């Protein structure tokens, strides 16, 4: 008996004696399948890391060699510290969008979610259906007229379109907060009401401190979105104010205008790293958030 069979749940043990060979083979095949899928899923990422360590010559003329002759760690220092610190300047711009909007969307979405979860009022259900229905409206239908409006107001090439949108909250986040607040026991709320606390105080001092998982999930999802968003910066911002996403889709070039592909790939790796690290640390929360809302990240 191999190690593999030891993890088999107890209920199967009776049968195992009869066809243990078949079972072992079946299990081994399953593992082979998992490893093969793992290879396919991870290959693109491994490949980008390998390629980011090549010279530009190796990139253009691979000569069927997979590994770089000498690992070009200086691609990373070039991506980060040369090209007049573009990477850091774009990072700062990206954070100027991502962080304030993250706080705003948490506050407004939780306020709205609390409203829907903990109050009875006329039209409440109709309005909540409206929130959900907005998730199904194709984004372009509202984005084009919004773009026209912001252009007329002179708000293009500023971060106001993001900030204003964040104050309005996001349907997805409202839904998440509503679901979470609905699970908090009523006794907590009643006790505070007897003490004469205002509704806002109940929200701020009782519900929010108890909603840390929801706050974390919404913050993470929002940060992922803002960090990765290419479309909104593309339509609103010019070169100087633009974000990392825009920089990386264009890539670096040397002064003569030739592309520095391997250096760009090094920047891509650094760009994706914060999200991967965040995922590793908060995977449980993230996966729970996906399950609650049924929407993939």
């Amino acid at each position, binding site marked *: 008996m191999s190690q593999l069979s030891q993890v088999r749940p107890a209920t199967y043990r009776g049968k195992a004696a009869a066809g243990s060979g078949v079972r072992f083979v079946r299990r081994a095949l399953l593992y082979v399948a998992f490893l093969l*899928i793992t290879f396919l899923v991870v290959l693109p990422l491994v490949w980008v890391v390998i390629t980011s360590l090549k010279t530009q010559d190796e990139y253009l003329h691979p000569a*069927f060699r997979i590994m770089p002759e000498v690992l070009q760690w200086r691609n990373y220092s070039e991506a980060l510290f040369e090209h007049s610190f573009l990477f850091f300047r774009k990072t700062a711009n990206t954070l100027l969008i991502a962080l304030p909007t993250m706080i705003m969307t948490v506050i407004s979405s939780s306020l709205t979610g609390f409203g829907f979860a903990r109050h009875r009022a006329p039209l409440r259900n109709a309005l909540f259906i409206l929130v959900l229905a907005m998730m199904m409206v*194709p984004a*372009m239908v*509202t984005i084009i007229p919004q773009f026209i409006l912001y252009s007329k107001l002179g708000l293009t090439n500023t971060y106001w379109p993001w900030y*204003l949108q964040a104050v309005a909250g996001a349907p997805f986040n409202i839904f998440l907060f509503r679901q979470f607040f609905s699970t908090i026991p009523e006794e907590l709320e009643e006790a505070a009401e007897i003490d004469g606390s205002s509704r806002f105080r109940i929200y701020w001092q009782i519900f929010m401190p108890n909603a840390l998982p929801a706050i974390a999930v919404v913050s993470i999802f929002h940060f*992922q979105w803002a960090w990765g968003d290419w479309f909104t910066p593309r339509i609103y911002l010019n070169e100087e104010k633009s974000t990392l996403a825009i920089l990386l889709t264009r890539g670096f070039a040397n002064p003569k205008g030739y592309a520095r592909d391997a250096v760009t790939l090094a920047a891509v790796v650094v*760009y994706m790293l914060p999200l991967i690290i965040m995922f590793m640390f908060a995977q449980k929360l993230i996966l729970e958030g996906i399950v609650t809302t049924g929407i993939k990240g």
Partner: protein
Amino acid sequence: MEQTLGSPSTSKLAPAKRPGRARRSVRSRREAISFYLFISPWLLGFILLTVFPLVLGFLTSLSNYDGLNLATVQFVGPKNYARALSKDLFWTSLANSARYAIIVVPVGITLSFLLAVMLNRPMRGRDFFRLIYYLPAILPVAGSSRVWRLLFDPNAGAVNALIRLFRPGIVINWRLNYWWEMLYLYAWWPAGAGMVIFLAGLQGIPGELYQAAEIDGANRFQQLIKITLPLMTPVVFFQLIMGIIGALQVMVEPILIYGTASGLSGRVDMPGRMYTYMVYTFVQVFDFQRYGYGVALSWIFFVIVLILTLIVIKSSKYWVFYRVSQEGEA
């Protein structure tokens, strides 16, 4: 009798109840006011940033507005809509989006479902595999599209390198000749995201069902088809609706995966025959400033999506299995 006891509107008890009722109505009015105060950020945003633009956009779609001069704006009626229907590129891009959605959504859901079923039993390394399969879903599109272009690069790409192990000297230009395959595979890379949702659904299936089936002599495959699949149809239904809406709107991915590095600084640079519907709209609005026409395109799209969604919802009564006791849906 029991009913009247609890009911406040019983005539006998009415005088005694009146103060309580008044207090209750004050309370409920207060509750309503605080409800509207709490949802006011969303409500204001909804009116100003959604409803108003929707109306404004619809009016724009009936005009020749080009973003520059308000003085020359004219009401042109449904001309923009008629123009769209007469353009070859409109139909090409619509067909491309349809083709993309028809292939990507069902295959994607099937892949996610199979992964979930495979990873649902307790086994060593299960959490590791789940984590790895989900990983691509968190990658930002600006990064992952670069990764994809590299993967399929004729010279530096891993796919060609793998093929060259068996057929030396071969150089396949994926971006030119197998453009669709590249995009499909990109869409299936994060199949682990759907897997997570299916896994949550699978956890909700009572184990007794399988035990009973086993006693009746049903094999694994029969259990999958007769128990797991029917009980998962609500999840499939939800995934299908969100998947169709998402896939039909695909825009950034084709622009970034196909777009050449130099072209990304300016306009979208991909041949029209590869446009998806939203790429077409994007180009018309943001590269050519045809706002009225662009909004008309987006409204046509909205109507198409609405009809499709309604069809899927209507069809659900024939194939979606709802349990009698719905304690918790995925």
